[in-house]
């Protein structure tokens, strides 16, 4: 027996010289909705939208309707789906964004059909395939799969004494191991300068710049460190087929999505360190009980055999998800870290990692991570004290 069905129906017809009308219906077990979207053929621009609910998730869903007008004027092309998902999906409703995108995609196909028919009047033998390949040109570029650039940045020279001989500072070093800056991470709304100012203001000893698939120039980071007199370290958040990983000591630029096994190999070759970021993000939306995800089952995930540590305090996930990650890390005997995952200024330092040793550079950081002498902490909440939150969670 089917547990769920969704049907989306889109019909496109022409109304006037430069106007397509798209009628879209989305009907599934939960939602029932309809849209009429008028689109300019030449400019591929949304001219008008009407939408209505037939069935909705809750009584407040009709609040979505007025926000549909915000898509009027949007033009199809680079970034269009993201814009619709962001504006309509978040301000109105994801289901409306979904059917509007389906209508617009179908309208683009219809525009091809219309242009082909016009062209065929001049060249009756022109097939649709030939027309399309002329219109699109040759396929462009390789897919955005896993690729590691051949250019390798120089590795920072090893400095200082072995970790065990290193100075143990009073209270050690507290670092936010996971922050995102703009424009290096397009999803972040805060510049590196703002992150640094905020980190200093709240009393962090340092921050790690872990922008998505972005390798910071060591010279630029060294300049920032000197200018602001704050420990600023380089890291990288890399998306793998098994989720996001925060890595340190890997200077290769990684583009696209990488297989976790391949990333592990690269990190090991570079003698770096890899932390699985927010491993249970969103996973508990329906409650552990609903899916029956037990601690034991979670601990069996192969990804935990490939990482050096687990991020168990991250400000982008629920406390329940953080607690669950902490239990998994403890059960597997894996070290646990904390990082804010800040994308906004107010998020810097919500969580951090407290190291027993004084850390002065990236090599110190990697060595300290290898010793396992660190613990995650709710820095904004608890200040420089040892984290009660983590201890009580596990």
């Amino acid at each position, binding site marked *: 027996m*089917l*547990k*769920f*069905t*969704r*049907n*989306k*129906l*889109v*019909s*496109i017809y*022409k109304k006037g010289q430069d106007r397509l*009308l798209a009628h879209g219906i989305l009907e*599934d*077990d*939960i939602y029932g909705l309809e849209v009429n979207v008028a689109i300019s053929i030449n400019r591929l621009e949304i001219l008008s939208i009407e939408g209505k609910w037939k069935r909705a*998730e*809750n*009584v*407040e*869903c009709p*609040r*979505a309707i007025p926000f549909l007008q915000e898509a009027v004027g949007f033009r199809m092309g680079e970034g269009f789906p993201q814009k619709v998902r962001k504006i309509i999906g*978040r*301000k*109105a*409703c*994801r289901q409306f964004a979904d059917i509007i995108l*389906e209508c617009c995609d*179908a*309208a683009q*196909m*219809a525009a091809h*059909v219309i242009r082909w028919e016009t062209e065929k009047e001049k060249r009756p033998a022109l097939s*649709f*395939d030939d027309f*399309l*390949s002329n219109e*699109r040109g040759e*396929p462009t*570029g390789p*897919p*955005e*799969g896993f690729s590691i650039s051949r250019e390798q940045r120089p590795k920072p020279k090893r400095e200082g004494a072995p970790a065990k001989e290193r100075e143990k500072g009073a209270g050690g070093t507290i670092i936010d191991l996971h922050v995102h800056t703009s424009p290096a991470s397009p999803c972040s709304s805060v510049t590196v300068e703002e992150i640094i100012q905020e980190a200093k203001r709240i009393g962090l000893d340092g921050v790690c710049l872990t922008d998505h698939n972005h390798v910071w120039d060591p010279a630029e980071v060294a300049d920032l460190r000197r200018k602001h007199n704050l420990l600023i370290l380089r890291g990288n958040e890399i*998306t*793998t*087929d*098994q*989720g996001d990983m925060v890595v340190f000591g890997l200077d290769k630029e990684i583009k696209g*999505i990488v297989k976790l096994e391949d990333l592990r190999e690269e990190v090991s070759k570079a003698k770096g360190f890899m932390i699985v970021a927010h491993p249970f*993000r*969103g996973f508990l939306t*329906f409650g552990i009980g*609903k*899916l029956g995800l037990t601690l034991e*089952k979670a601990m069996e*995930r192969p990804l935990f055999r490939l990482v050096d540590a687990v991020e168990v305090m991250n400000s982008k996930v*629920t406390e*329940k998800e953080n607690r669950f990650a902490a239990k998994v890390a403890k059960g597997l005997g894996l070290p646990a870290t904390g990082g804010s995952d800040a994308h906004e200024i*107010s998020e810097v330092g919500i969580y951090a990692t407290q190291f027993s040793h004084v850390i002065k550079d990236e090599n110190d950081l990697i060595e300290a991570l290898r010793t396992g002498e660190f613990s995650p902490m709710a820095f904004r909440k608890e200040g420089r004290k040892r984290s009660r939150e983590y201890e009580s969670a596990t």
Partner: protein
Amino acid sequence: MADILYFCRNRCISVEQIDEQSMRSSCRLQDTLTDALVEVIVKIPDLEVIEVSGEIRRSTGEQEINVVEALRKVIGIRVGPGMKKIIRGLIGNSKTEKELGFMVEECCDGIILTFTKDVLLHAPKDKLKEREYFKNMVRSNPRLYNSCAALAPGSPLVEGIKPPR
């Protein structure tokens, strides 16, 4: 004059429970230019994709791609947040690969909506109790706050709930 259609699309996603440990989700696309099918099998409770299959029965233009090979790249990923970026990155960027990737996403969305449906089936019929039910959902998952018009500030469903930090 009749408004004859220039283009028509029908996309159907259906989810079934195969047994206690697995669910199958399929997406069938039929439109003026394309006819394609993608099937995804996920393991419960991890929601890990353990099998994917598909075929393109009719399409236009573009180079041939190996559908099975393209789809196999998503085996091992898990249904959940961030999956769309992973699927798109793994499957590829040609027009056909993008469509196949989108169909995999649709299958995965179907799985999530199946669980959403189960949650909604337990929502109380009484309006006041329903409001409290949704409030509790937002409380236990703060990411839902301001995630759509119904859960935006000003809506009774989030009344009294502190915005997440």
